[in-house]
């Protein structure tokens, strides 16, 4: 869909690394350029026309995000991306509210950014991390989470869609469990919000994180949606301009309330505005259409790959646009170097989910991750090159 909107596609490439980052449509690039060329100014401070326009554009994006994921605009904190969002949850909120012996449930298929902050907190506070077991397809099911819950469970922190297996976790059911049992529900939406409709309120989510660059938006910006009553109890990680009401020589100070409390200093203004445009762009196409297109294309990809004897597939069933595979007997990185020589861009590695290797018995895979602009021709090009992979070492060496 909409291939003509993406200047990068004017080059003869097949872009299959959307889990890492996505291409940007012209409207997003132009929207950011417009800020730089027509109304550059800082937020929150000026009385002149450009500054007023900047303020409106910047704060307006909170409404756009709120509509997109069904939350209140006052619940939308702009961050530098998912990593910063999750760190804010852990160190602004959890550090204050968890105690020695409290349990946090994760899975072994989480991205580094949803593991390491918890490991650090566990080191600091003696919080216990429990990994809800994955099933034989490496997927995380509600039942597994339910079995891992004890009276000590205070938080469940999981990705909505895993970035290696691509399984879509039933966050609605998990959110219901959490609200029944008084457990905080922290959702890493990095791989879901860009690809399907995510409903913050309806899924009983307490914290939701995602990155603009994985959804047609710019790098350097993302969102933390924090439930209003929890936000009030969060201590900012950064102090400075734009987040305080007053401060005095006697040491007293008062902070702003609401999201700006967490946005000290000059934020990435152009990027926030660009993110708003990206969301509008996605909504125009429709999240249902985007998801449907990806899932159908993945099915096609799997059915074509299954015809090639020396391809090992790992997660054919997951209901998203992510597929991990290997060429039998070939190290994943050699495979991605090979594909690159035909202008096919994929990712090789453990995809930042380093502890998943214990479960998969295989450390590294080639990952194809699809997005709205991928089509059958892209898939057929990959298939054709993989069919010829007997000569892979002629190409990569």
């Amino acid at each position: 869909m909409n291939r003509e909107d993406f200047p990068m596609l004017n080059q003869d490439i097949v872009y299959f690394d959307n889990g890492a980052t996505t291409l940007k449509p012209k409207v997003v690039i132009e929207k950011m350029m417009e800020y730089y060329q027509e109304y550059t100014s800082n937020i929150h401070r000026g009385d002149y026309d450009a500054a007023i326009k900047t303020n409106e554009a910047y704060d307006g994006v909170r409404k756009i995000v709120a509509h997109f994921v069904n939350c209140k605009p006052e619940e939308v904190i702009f961050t530098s991306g998912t990593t910063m969002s999750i760190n804010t949850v852990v160190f602004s909120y959890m550090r204050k509210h968890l105690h020695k012996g409290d349990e946090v449930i994760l899975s072994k298929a989480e991205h580094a950014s949803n593991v390491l902050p918890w490991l650090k907190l566990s080191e600091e506070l003696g919080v216990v991390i429990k990994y809800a077991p994955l099933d034989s397809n490496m997927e995380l099911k509600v039942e597994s989470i339910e079995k891992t819950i004890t009276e000590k469970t205070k938080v469940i922190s999981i990705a909505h869609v895993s970035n290696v297996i691509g399984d879509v976790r039933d966050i609605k059911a998990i959110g219901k469990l959490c609200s029944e049992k008084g457990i905080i529900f922290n959702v890493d939406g990095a791989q879901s919000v860009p690809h399907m409709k995510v409903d913050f309120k309806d899924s009983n989510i307490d914290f939701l994180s995602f990155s603009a660059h994985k959804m047609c938006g710019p790098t350097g910006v993302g969102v933390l949606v924090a439930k209003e009553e929890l936000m009030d109890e969060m201590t900012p990680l950064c102090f400075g301009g734009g987040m305080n009401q007053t401060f005095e020589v006697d040491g007293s100070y008062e902070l702003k309330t609401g999201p700006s409390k967490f946005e000290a200093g000059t934020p990435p203004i152009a990027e926030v505005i660009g993110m708003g445009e990206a969301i509008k762009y996605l909504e125009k196409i429709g999240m249902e259409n985007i998801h449907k297109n990806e899932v159908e294309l993945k099915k096609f990809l799997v059915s074509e790959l299954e015809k090639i004897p020396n391809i090992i597939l790992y997660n054919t069933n997951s209901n998203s646009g992510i597929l991990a595979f290997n060429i039998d007997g070939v190290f994943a990185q050699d495979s991605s170097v090979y594909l690159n020589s035909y202008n096919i861009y994929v990712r090789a590695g453990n995809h930042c989910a380093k502890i998943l290797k214990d479960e998969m018995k295989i450390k590294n895979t080639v990952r194809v991750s699809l997005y709205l602009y991928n089509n059958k021709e892209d898939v057929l090009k990959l298939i054709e090159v993989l069919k010829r992979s007997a000569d892979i070492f002629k190409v990569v060496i």
Partner: protein
Amino acid sequence: MDSNLRREIILDNYQNPTNRGLVNDDSYLKVNTNSESCIDNLDFMMKIEDNKVKDICFDGEACAISTSASSILIRSLIGKSVDEVRNILENYKKMINEEDYDKDLLGELNVYDTLQPNRKNCALLPSVAIDKMLGSVRDGRKN
């Protein structure tokens, strides 16, 4: 070098590497190289006696370039004095980084004289590992 011959040497060393497999011997130095820039992950072990490299072995998961380079480098270094090893490593790094180097000294290692930029770290991986172990000899540490 003829590119078919080059490929044959690299492939042969990838598929049948010299001294793949670690030993259970405390007198060896040991190091892991988990490269940040790529996904190669190799362990190396080296035995030094009377200022000579008696043995080097390695194991792990890595691409064709770093596996084969480990194999060839190991063969080039075993039996050499620590100073000779340092000299070979230095020239090897210079070759990979496209600086002037002593071609005659490197023998079979010359197969890596024209790598694509994104494969340079792969080829350098074993030399970094061996360097690290030599560094620990100099510091008087064992690990």
